């Protein structure tokens, strides 16, 4: 039977598998039936916050939201501060999640529980359909942490994601019936593009659980025994190599969120006998470029991306401006790039204000804003030491105190409501004065020097 749920669902038949669970497969027909059942219980709302980690529950929430033309909100973290911000900004917000932790006054629904109560012989009264303009409306708001202390919104359309999904599948030469297995959350732009929208648009299947340990990935692959695309990050790539797990049935792997060591890329391809591709992108734009690092260090832009230099090359720090037909239209890149030629380029590091840890991004300005809001702190700044031993380099803080006594524990407690746990400082250096220039700007080289001096001597 032919079906038409284009452009979002590219499946050919109702019997095609959308989701693989550990010992069960969910077909298009089952998905449609579950959506029809859940649709009866979804309360009226305009804004949707879908926090499910399980990809099937996330997908149900997503498709229900698109069907209802909800505005999907994707914050960069779910700290108490961020949830409070969303609740105040969008009073009718509906949270979909398996627990109502920190939902405050938000409307809350657990579709997982509802599904458990679904009658076995439930008959859908209507076929799944989307209104024509569902994909071209500004129905997505993705937040970055911004630089003013408040989450910064970027408005997108589902069409932006569909355009990326179509290109990814083609450029990565994905075979039919591939299964996507992802170690990254579905809510972040990279995860949403590669592990949700790419499989939907191209009719691939999705594994519902998010593996964490390398042995989890191994177990899923051994059990499923089908061609799989692993969507992951440098930290999981390294962890798989390091623990020497077996990863059979890989068609290819994808890494993003941080630069991958070229040795790791080579070893991973050798050990697991499958290509490893890297994606370069950002929350604001989505996927920008691809490369297979063992084949070329050059990044190749997607077809709807053009990068150009915004001013004549007369300084070392000129900007690179990206132009696209996606919602954002233009964007100044956060990275230094070189050798731009024929829409291919080399990457040469991130601008100093951007902090990227294990796929989560924030800015020093955001962190410093919240640090300086702590009463006991007179002045202070976050600092990210250079990469050591190939591990994620955690942040440290330098602080000048209003009063003499303050502990790292107290500092973390004050910050944790506002800052994602991963960015909490690992060390705290109390100093008498921060190295600032006449305009008050913190001098990065001086902080670097201070860190090397302080690193030998310990404090709190």
């Amino acid at each position, binding site marked *: 039977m032919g079906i038409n749920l284009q452009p979002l669902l590219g499946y050919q038949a109702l019997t095609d598998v959308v989701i693989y669970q550990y010992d069960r497969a969910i077909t298009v027909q089952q998905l449609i039936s579950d959506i029809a059942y859940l649709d009866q219980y979804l309360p009226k709302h305009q804004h949707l916050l879908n926090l499910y980690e399980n990809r099937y529950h996330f997908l149900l929430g997503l498709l229900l939201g698109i069907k209802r033309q909800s505005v999907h909100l994707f914050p960069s973290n779910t700290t108490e501060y961020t949830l409070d911000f969303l609740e105040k900004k969008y009073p009718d917000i509906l949270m979909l999640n398996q627990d109502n932790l920190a939902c405050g006054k938000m409307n809350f629904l657990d579709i997982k529980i509802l599904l458990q109560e679904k009658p076995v012989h439930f008959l859908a009264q209507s076929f799944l359909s989307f209104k024509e303009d569902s994909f071209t409306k500004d129905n997505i708001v993705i937040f970055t942490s911004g630089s003013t202390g408040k989450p910064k919104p970027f408005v997108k359309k589902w069409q932006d994601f569909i355009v990326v999904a179509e290109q990814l599948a083609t450029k990565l030469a994905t075979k039919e019936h591939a299964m996507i297995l992802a170690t990254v959350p579905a809510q972040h732009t990279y995860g949403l593009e590669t592990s949700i929208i790419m499989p939907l648009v191209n009719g691939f299947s999705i594994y519902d659980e998010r593996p964490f*340990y*390398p042995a989890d990935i191994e177990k899923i692959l051994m059990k499923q025994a089908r061609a799989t695309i692993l969507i992951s990050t440098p*930290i999981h790539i390294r962890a798989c190599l390091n*623990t020497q797990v077996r990863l059979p049935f890989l068609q290819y792997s994808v890494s993003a969120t941080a630069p991958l060591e070229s040795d790791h890329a080579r070893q991973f391809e050798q050990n697991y006998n499958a290509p490893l591709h890297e994606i370069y992108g950002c929350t604001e734009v989505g996927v920008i470029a691809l490369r297979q690092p063992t084949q070329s260090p050059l990044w190749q832009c997607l077809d709807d991306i053009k990068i150009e230099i915004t001013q004549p090359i007369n300084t070392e720090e000129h900007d690179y401006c990206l132009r696209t037909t996606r919602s954002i239209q233009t964007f100044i890149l956060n990275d230094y790039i070189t050798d731009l030629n024929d829409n291919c380029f080399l990457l040469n590091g991130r601008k100093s204000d951007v902090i990227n840890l294990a796929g989560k991004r924030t800015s020093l300005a955001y962190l410093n804003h919240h640090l300086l809001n702590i009463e006991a702190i007179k002045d202070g700044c976050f600092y990210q030491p250079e990469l050591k031993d190939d591990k994620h380099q955690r942040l440290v803080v330098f602080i000048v105190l209003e009063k003499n006594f303050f502990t790292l*524990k107290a500092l*973390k407690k004050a910050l944790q409501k506002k800052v994602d746990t*991963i960015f909490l400082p690992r060390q705290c250096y109390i100093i008498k004065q921060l190295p600032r220039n006449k305009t008050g700007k913190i001098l990065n080289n001086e902080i670097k020097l201070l860190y090397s001096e302080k690193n030998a001597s310990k404090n709190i």
Partner: protein
Amino acid sequence: MSLSDLEVQVGELIIETLNLDMEVNDIDPDDYLFGEGLGLDSIDALELAMAISNQYNFQLRSDDANNRKIFRSLKTLADYIDSQLKIG
């Protein structure tokens, strides 16, 4: 509270792997490793899984029913490693 030999060994592994600014005797064996307590997070858990796999030659898995309990404190982690070493 004094630490057992294995707790000292695992504590040192945690400190070295995660580059923590503390001595092994600063760790209360019953204190939480994640959240309050040592304040570790998921990236640390992955780093620790790698270090444990290399040092003790067994793999950690999410579907172990006791996974949360295993990582609760230094004591529970050391106890789990001890039980795996006995099986191995």
